[in-house]
């Protein structure tokens, strides 16, 4: 009887269920989608032509990139501040920061989106308060537009931006910071010219993760955008489920997947997958 499997065989066996699942649930259907994009309603590159010429599709792509870029900048900046406290703060500060980072993971994305609607709508908490203190007379339009989408997405994505940053800050050698101070550099200067550059890989990893996530966001923009600030994922949904235009929906999906794939390749050139957890 063969007592042991070789390591490689063992690893392959352990991986097999996941690979089979991914193959059956993602890869195979995706080939179907690719197939649609070239065959519906008739064989050819027609849908990709539409994609390049249709101003609506293009405006959605441009909006998606713009929102993703803004969300990325705001999320990474906010996450950076939280992470500094989490990794380098006093024990009490660390506990508070950890709480702020982890709690959002326990609340569903739907709940959070509706929570923001409640806070930001015309008769929501913010507008009521701002009117009550006389800061504004007419309610501000904070939701059902790009602003609402950006707020909701940023809130969702900050915790994801934290982990790559935390990993780069943890691996930083404290003596280098001491050295900077010993050489006459103020705390502020040490932060900007030594600490931040030394966490560059974390910033890149964090930014790319948030950006990639943002591109495919569906629920949050659908709820907080109120149909007025449609992003790519929602456009695909509309093309497939509402106007039976499967070919175009499929073509947009293929372009999105290729774009995200290229970005992920870029992520892994800068950051080891291990650093993202």
């Amino acid at each position, binding site marked *: 009887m063969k007592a042991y499997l070789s390591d490689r065989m063992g690893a392959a066996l352990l991986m097999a269920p996941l690979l089979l699942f991914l193959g059956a649930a993602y890869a195979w259907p995706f080939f179907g989608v690719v197939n649609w994009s070239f065959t519906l309603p008739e064989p050819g590159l027609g849908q990709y032509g539409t994609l390049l010429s249709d101003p609506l599709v293009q405006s959605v792509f441009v909006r998606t990139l713009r929102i993703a870029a803004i969300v990325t900048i705001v999320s990474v900046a906010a996450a950076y501040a939280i992470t500094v406290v989490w990794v380098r703060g006093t024990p009490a500060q660390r506990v508070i920061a950890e709480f702020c980072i982890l709690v959002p993971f326990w609340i569903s994305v739907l709940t959070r989106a509706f929570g923001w609607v409640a806070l930001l709508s015309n008769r929501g908490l913010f507008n009521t308060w701002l009117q009550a203190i006389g800061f504004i007379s007419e309610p501000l339009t904070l939701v059902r537009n790009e602003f609402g989408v950006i707020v909701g997405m940023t809130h969702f994505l900050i915790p994801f931006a934290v982990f790559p940053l935390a990993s780069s800050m943890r691996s930083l050698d404290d003596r280098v910071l*001491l050295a900077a101070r*010993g*050489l*006459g550099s103020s705390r502020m200067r040490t932060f900007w010219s030594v600490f931040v550059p*030394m966490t560059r890989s974390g910033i890149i990893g964090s930014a790319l993760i948030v950006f990639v996530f943002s591109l495919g966001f569906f629920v949050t923009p659908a709820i907080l955008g109120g149909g007025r600030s449609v992003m790519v994922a929602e456009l695909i949904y509309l093309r497939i489920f509402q106007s039976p235009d499967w070919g175009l929906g499929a073509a947009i999906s293929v372009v999105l997947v290729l774009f995200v794939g290229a970005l992920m390749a870029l992520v892994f050139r800068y950051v080891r997958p291990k650093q993202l957890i």
Partner: protein
Amino acid sequence: MQQPGRAAEIKAIGIGKSFGSFRALDDLTLDIGRGEFLTLLGPSGSGKTTFLMILAGFVQPTDGRLYSDGVDITERPAEQRAAGMVFQGYALFPHMSVEANIAFPLKVRKKSSAEIKRRVGEMIERVGLKGHEKKLPSQLSGGQQQRVALARALVFEPGVLLLDEPFSALDKGLRGQMQAEMKRLHQETGTTFVFVTHDQSEALALSSRVAIFNHGKLLQVGAPDEVYDRPASRFVAEFLGEINMLPLKGVRNADNGATGLCEDRTITLRGNASAVGGNAILAIRPEYMSIAPEAAAGENGIAATAVASTYLGAATRLDLTTRQGAKVTVSVPNEVAASALSKGNSVWLTWPAEKGFLLPDGGQ
């Protein structure tokens, strides 16, 4: 080139540091002279690094005051002390080129770009890094990184340069080379150097004075030959190198020294601290002992049997036992060792009267 007058003079008075209930440093009083090369020597956990961190301003002492050129700097933050520091592992900025690393302290001081360029250029030349200006620290060898660290710490002409075990990561050959280089930099800059190490040979080779620490206390400070030849305690004697210790009875002062009995022979010591009376420990460095067939009357000597030898290349280390069982080690020429071993019982160990010294019996 720096004016020697810019070198700092440091005075530590009653400095102590506790971490919780652990006393890392206790009641340290020490003057560090202008332009001196002082080594803080001791085993790990002896307080030497804590003292260096206090000098740098990275650690606040719990007691005592620290003065630099007569000014109280105890509470002054590190960035305002202007002490150059070379860390263990160098702590170079990994994202900056060699040039940018060295320019950093000047940029922080808002020097003009022309001055920065000139001084960085001079420093790079001085430490022999020409041609490596644009490289990142990760592209350099250990010795080259060490040079960058030295250049970065010296470029702004600090009053004092603090070095925390800077050579511990280098292999032996390179270490010797860097030591020589550091000695040269010390002479050229005239800056006060405070150097931490646990390597006694490094301490003796480099410094103008050595301060020996143990268990958070400063035990002795003095010139290398002073602490080596006349250690004040058993710990210092043993830490600075191999030492033979023999029990001495009936110790009393004699003219310009002391005498006592060791295994029924009268031993004389000259130019030594006064005897404590009664029993003491006679200490002699192995290199001052020689092997002889006989000891003349009045000469310091003790009979011993050679029990083992270790060939060291240039010399042989010989382990001997005296008649009353004390163990002695000497380093002798190879052929002497061979003949001593073959003769069995009949060798004598002799040493000049001025090379032995007394340690309090059982004292630390």
